[in-house]
C-alpha cells in the first residue's frame, strides 16, 4: 500500500521552556515559551501559525483553547488530544493530516506541565495529588494499587518469569540514559549512575526501584510542522516525517498478553510500512521511557531485538551512544525529565539535524524512530523522522 504522506511534511522547528524546577511559571506559560522558541527556531513568526495541537484534557478543560489564548492565536485548526503520553507523536501526525487536507499550513504541536512543582511544592501538595487522583474508583485503590509503577512492575515480573530477564539488565537502561544525560546541560540528573548504585537503590514497587522510574519535571516543549517544500526554505534543515503509526490495545494492560507485547508492535509496523523501511534502517531511537520496563518492551516491539531478548540487548550496552541502537540520547524521561514524550520528538529532530557536538551526536544519524506511550497504558504511537525525504 502506498502512502502519499510519506516525506511530504516535516518538523521545521523545535523548542522548549526552561526545564527542571520552574516554580515561577505555570504549565500554559511554559507551553507558550516553548511554542515561541520553536517558531523562532524555524525562522517563522506568530503570523505564520494557523494550527495548534496540544495534549489535554487532564490538566484543564479545552486545553488547546487555553494555550491559544496565552499565545493570542486565531487558527483554522486546533484541538487537544487525549492519548496520554502517546498524544505528542499523534499530534504531529494530526498536523500532517490537517495540512494535507488543506485546513492549515503551519501547526504548533506541544506539551507542558508543572509536574515537579505540583508534587513537590510542599508535603500537603504531594499528599493531595496522591490521594485526590487515586482515591476514587474501584478495583484498584482499595487494594493499595496506586499509580503507574504498579502496571510496569507486574509487566517486569511477568517478563522476568517468562524470559529470564534480570534486574541488572533493566538497570543497564537507566545507566545508559544517565550516561547520555551527563552530556546534556538541560538534564535534571547529570551525575553518572553506576549499576551498583542502581542495584542498591530503594524499591518503589518491587521489582522496580527508584531508578526504574522517570523523573517528573516542570517543562514544556513544542515543534512546528509544515510542508516539506516550505521547510526546505526555512532556517533549519527539515526533519522529514517519513511515517507514523499507532497501536491502541484498548482492551487493557492486564488482558491477553498486552503487558508483554504492546501496541508498539502495531504502531511500529505501520510507521515502518509508511516510511518503506525496517528496524535495521533506524540509526537512533527516542523511546517513551516512563519506566525502564517500557523501554525494554519497546526495544522488542519495534523490532530492535526479538521478543524476550530485550534484557540481554540492553545489557550488552546497545543503548549507549556507540551501541547498536543509541537510545534516548538526551537522557530520556528517566534522566532528562518527563514531559510526556515531547522532548523525545525534540531530541529526534536534533539528532537528524546533526546539531549536537561529538560527545552527544549519533554519528551519521539519518533516520530516527520516536515513540509515545500512555493513557491508561493502552496507547502507543511511533514516528519515523529522516534527514532526507528520498
Amino acid at each position: 500500500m502506498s502512502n502519499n504522506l510519506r516525506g511530504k511534511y516535516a518538523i521545521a522547528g523545535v523548542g522548549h521552556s526552561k526545564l527542571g524546577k520552574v516554580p515561577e511559571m505555570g504549565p500554559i506559560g511554559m507551553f507558550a515559551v516553548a511554542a515561541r522558541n520553536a517558531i523562532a527556531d524555524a525562522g517563522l513568526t506568530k503570523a505564520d501559525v494557523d494550527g495548534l495541537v496540544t495534549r489535554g484534557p487532564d490538566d484543564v478543560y479545552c486545553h488547546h483553547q487555553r494555550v491559544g489564548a496565552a499565545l493570542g492565536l486565531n487558527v483554522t485548526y486546533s484541538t487537544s488530544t487525549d492519548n496520554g503520553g502517546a498524544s505528542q507523536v499523534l499530534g504531529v501526525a494530526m498536523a500532517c493530516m490537517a495540512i494535507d487536507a488543506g485546513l492549515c499550513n503551519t501547526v504548533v504541536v506541544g506539551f507542558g506541565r508543572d509536574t515537579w512543582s505540583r508534587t513537590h511544592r510542599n508535603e500537603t501538595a504531594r499528599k493531595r495529588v496522591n490521594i485526590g487522583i487515586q482515591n476514587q474508583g474501584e478495583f484498584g485503590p482499595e487494594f493499595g494499587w496506586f499509580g503507574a509503577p504498579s502496571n510496569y512492575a507486574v509487566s517486569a515480573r511477568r517478563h522476568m518469569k517468562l524470559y529470564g530477564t534480570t534486574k541488572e539488565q533493566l538497570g543497564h537502561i537507566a545507566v545508559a540514559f544517565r550516561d547520555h544525560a551527563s552530556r546534556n546541560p538541560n538534564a535534571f540528573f547529570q551525575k553518572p549512575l553506576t549499576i551498583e548504585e542502581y542495584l542498591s537503590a530503594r524499591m518503589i514497587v518491587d521489582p522496580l526501584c527508584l531508578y526504574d522510574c522517570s523523573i517528573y519535571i516542570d517543562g514544556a516543549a513544542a515543534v512546528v510542522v509544515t510542508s516539506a517544500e516550505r521547510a526546505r526554505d526555512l532556517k533549519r534543515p527539515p526533519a522529514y516525517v517519513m511515517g507514523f503509526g499507532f497501536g491502541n490495545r484498548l482492551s487493557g494492560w492486564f488482558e491477553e498478553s498486552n503487558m508483554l507485547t504492546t501496541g508498539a508492535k502495531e504502531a511500529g509496523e505501520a510507521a515502518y510500512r509508511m516510511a518503506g523501511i525496517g528496524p535495521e534502517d533506524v540509526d537512533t531511537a527516542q523511546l517513551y521511557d516512563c519506566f525502564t520496563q517500557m523501554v525494554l518492551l519497546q526495544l522488542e516491539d519495534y523490532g530492535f531485538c526479538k521478543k524476550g531478548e530485550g534484557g540481554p540487548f540492553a545489557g550488552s550496552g546497545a543503548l549507549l551512544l556507540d551501541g547498536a541502537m543509541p537510545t534516548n540520547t538526551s537522557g530520556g524521561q528517566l534522566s532528562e525529565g518527563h514531559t510526556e514524550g515531547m522532548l523525545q520528538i525534540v531530541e529526534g529532530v536534533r539528532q537528524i539535524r546533526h546539531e549536537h557536538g561529538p560527545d552527544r551526536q549519533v554519528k551519521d544519524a539519518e533516520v530516527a524512530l520516536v515513540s509515545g506511550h500512555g493513557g491508561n497504558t493502552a496507547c502507543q504511537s511511533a514516528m519515523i523522522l529522516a534527514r532526507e525525504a528520498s
Partner: protein
Amino acid sequence: MSEYAKPLPYPTVESEPFWEGCKRHELLLPQCRQCSGYWFPPGSTCPHCWSTEWDWKKASGRGRIHSFGIYNRVYHPGFEGEIPYVFAVIQLEEGPRMVSNVVNESPDKLDCDQPVEVVFEDVTEEVTLYKFAPAN
C-alpha cells in the same frame, strides 16, 4: 474497632451487584448467555460478543498469580505500617483477570503462576473486599 483508613471502593450502577456478592462472601462474575464468556470488571455488554443478555455467576474463587508487585512506598496514609504489601493480577479459572492483594504469605515466597484462592475480608460493616491467598 478503629476507623478503617484505607480507600473504599466507589461502586457504579454496573458493579453494585458484584460488591453485594462480596458481602455474602461470593465472588460473582458476569457470564454471557450467548457466548458463555466471562468478563471483569463488570459492564453491561459482553466484551467478547457484545450481547447484553447475561447473568451473574458465582466463580470458583480459584486462580493463579499472573503477576505481582510489592509496594515499598506509601502512596496513601491508610497503608502506613502495611509495607511491604503485595498487589497482584489474578488469573481466574473462569478466564478474567482481576487486581487484588495476595495475603497470608510472605512476599518473597510468592511466584507467578502460583495457585491461589479467594478469601473475603469484611473491612467495614458495609464493605467486604475480595483478596487471594495461596491455595492449600
